[in-house]
């Protein structure tokens, strides 16, 4: 036994050396500046390699060092906030619209008008694109990839159900869902989210379609009588089996990729699940295609939500210039178009967005069309976005489970939202 113990001891000691060695900080050698880039895509299976390539290409080109710090997409906002509280080095970060808003609330982001110069920004981006990254007149986010969250459908299923064109009004949409249900293949017609935060995100554009919204422009709770119609419509779809409980974005993607779902709401990244399920990237559009959300009355404007990734630079950064230089490299045509080719991320600079290959991409087209009229998620500029969404989802779920009526649902939402804002 003693022998065993001493062996264990030697092993442990040598492991400690390992751990001790790990303490040495990773300061870059040589002349260049060392910056920290945070986000999530550099960790994910599908994007790990291209992010690695972006960094090494830039490092070779500039002589600077880019240290990547990453988490899961779901934890990025929280981890950025923790890191900001501690004041660890953080120069540039990847942020989607939700994360961007959260981080912007902390007041730690640099005004990019000062970093890049207003001129340069205006030259390179469309006005509407820049607006997504503006809060209170400050340009806090640099657009990187942008499109909308709209409805996605499987053309093969639709044509089996006898639909060669997509439904444009809610009436047609219901008829289409009925035809899909009638196929009897166990296909879920519409995978609207009924689980997690995404359920609130999906409800909003439908509220807009029915003619109301969660909040008024002045920030007070709106929820007009049309909200009751919307909730009743959800209940009706659930009763007919068109939609299901316990579907979040992840579940919808799984089912859709398996060909067991006809419609759901998603952004351009929808492609990812199909590709990882073995579909050829060039043929994704045959089983996964974007469409405008059906409208209440013919001629109404179709609704969709803004989606995008941005780059943010931190005010506390000692190397804003290097960070800006790196950001310019990331959005440069060559890098952005490769990112688009590999992962379908739509570029946003005037020069890259207007190239033939982006404009004529059949998959991207539907998303870009919807982007023209896309609105920001209503909670986008709120400090307690997640709390608001939680309230909306909880009350929606209670009604769908039959615990409350649609009227009670709207009333409860109103009461809880009013006290939350």
């Amino acid at each position, binding site marked *: *036994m003693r022998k065993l113990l001493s062996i*264990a001891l030697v*092993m*442990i000691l040598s*492991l*400690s050396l*390992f*751990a001790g060695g*790990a*303490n040495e*900080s*990773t300061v870059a050698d040589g002349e260049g500046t060392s910056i920290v880039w945070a986000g*999530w*895509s550099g*960790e*994910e*299976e*599908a*994007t*790990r390699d291209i992010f690695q390539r972006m960094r090494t290409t830039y490092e070779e080109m500039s002589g600077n060092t880019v240290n*990547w*710090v*990453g*988490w*899961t*997409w*779901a*934890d990025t906002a929280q*981890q950025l906030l*923790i890191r900001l*509280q*501690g*004041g*660890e080095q953080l120069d540039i970060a990847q942020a*989607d619209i939700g994360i961007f808003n959260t981080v912007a609330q902390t007041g730690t982001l640099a005004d990019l008008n000062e970093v890049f110069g207003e001129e340069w920004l205006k030259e390179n981006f469309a006005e509407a694109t820049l607006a997504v990254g503006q809060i209170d007149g400050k340009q806090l986010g640099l657009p990187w990839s942008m499109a909308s969250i709209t409805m996605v459908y499987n053309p093969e299923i639709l044509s089996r159900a006898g639909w060669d064109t997509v439904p444009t009004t809610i009436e047609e949409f219901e008829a289409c869902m009925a035809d899909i249900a009638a196929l009897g293949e166990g296909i879920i017609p519409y995978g609207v989210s009924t689980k997690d935060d995404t359920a609130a995100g999906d409800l909003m554009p439908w509220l807009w379609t029915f003619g109301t919204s969660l909040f008024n422009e002045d920030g007070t709770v709106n929820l007009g009588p049309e909200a009751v119609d919307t909730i009743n419509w959800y209940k009706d779809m659930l009763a007919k089996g068109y939609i299901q409980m316990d579907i979040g974005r*992840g579940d919808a*993607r*799984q089912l859709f990729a*398996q060909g067991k779902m006809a419609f759901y709401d998603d952004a351009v*990244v*929808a*492609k*990812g*699940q199909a*590709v*990882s*399920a*073995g579909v050829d990237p060039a043929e994704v559009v045959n089983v996964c295609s974007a469409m405008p959300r059906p409208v209440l009355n013919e001629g109404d404007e179709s609704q969709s939500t803004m989606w995008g990734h941005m780059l943010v630079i931190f005010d506390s950064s000692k190397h804003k210039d290097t960070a800006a230089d790196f950001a310019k490299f990331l959005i440069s045509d060559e890098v952005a178009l490769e990112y688009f080719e590999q992962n379908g991320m739509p570029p946003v600079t005037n020069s890259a967005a207007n190239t033939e290959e982006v404009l004529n991409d059949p998959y991207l087209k539907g998303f870009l069309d919807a982007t023209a009229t896309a609105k920001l998620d209503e909670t986008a500029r709120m400090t307690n976005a997640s709390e608001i969404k939680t309230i909306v989802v909880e009350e929606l779920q209670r009604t769908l489970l039959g615990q409350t009526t649609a009227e009670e649902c709207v009333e409860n939402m109103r009461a809880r939202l009013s006290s939350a804002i």
Partner: protein
Amino acid sequence: MFQKTLAFRIFFTVSLFLIGCFVFLPLLWMINTALKPADKTFTLYFFAGELTLDNIIGILSDKTIMTYLRNSLIVSFLSSFMATLVSSFAAYSFSKFRYRGRKAIMGAFMMSQAFPQAILLLAIYLMMQRFHLLGSYWSLLISYVVFTLPVGTWTLKGYFDGISNSLIESAKIDGAGNLRIMTRIVFPMAIPGMISIAIYGFVWSWNDLLYAMTLVTDPSRRTLAPGLVMTYLGEASTNWAAMMSASIVASIPVTIIFVFLQRYFITGLTSGAVKE
């Protein structure tokens, strides 16, 4: 222990079958998933169908995942070793020495399990930063030691309580000092108990996600649980097959250790707590 009556045989067979199914079927399903080609992940066949080693080979040849696995092994081994050592000292002290404040400290140790760990995270993060430990194995080792400490101390204390004082006293009469008594007499008798605490601490560190993700951001030092989540639960897609394969592959080395050590583990876990 029990007579093999008919009733007992029935109880034995039924339990073996039912609990066996409950315990092993989901596990087999995981292995089954790991062996399916990616496009068949959600096809509901159970081994009888197309099987491939691609996923497993993919994981084994993925350098990043193997780095995570190595880090998990390092951190888990070291933290369980440290936790066992520290708990043993503390437990021995609680069991065989009397001094003022002893009971208060014992109570405090127990209470440390009583606060949600998510809340402690921020303060721990800030402290690790102040001591420049962020991103090092030490930040994880120290946190994990503390979360094993209460269980370890209490279990081992029971164990040491079971060692008779007369043994220690006679050693003293022979002129042995406290250090010698501890390392030569008391600790060797508690080895099974220590192994059980080591395994307990090992599993704790092995499974931790929140602390590991927050305190260590450098991929070269990241452990497996956050590593898997970050790699396979993406913004746009979740790769279940790879996640299952990786979990299975990762559990193999640990399973071998467990099968090897289970005899110590099982006798050790309890002999401390049960006294005659």
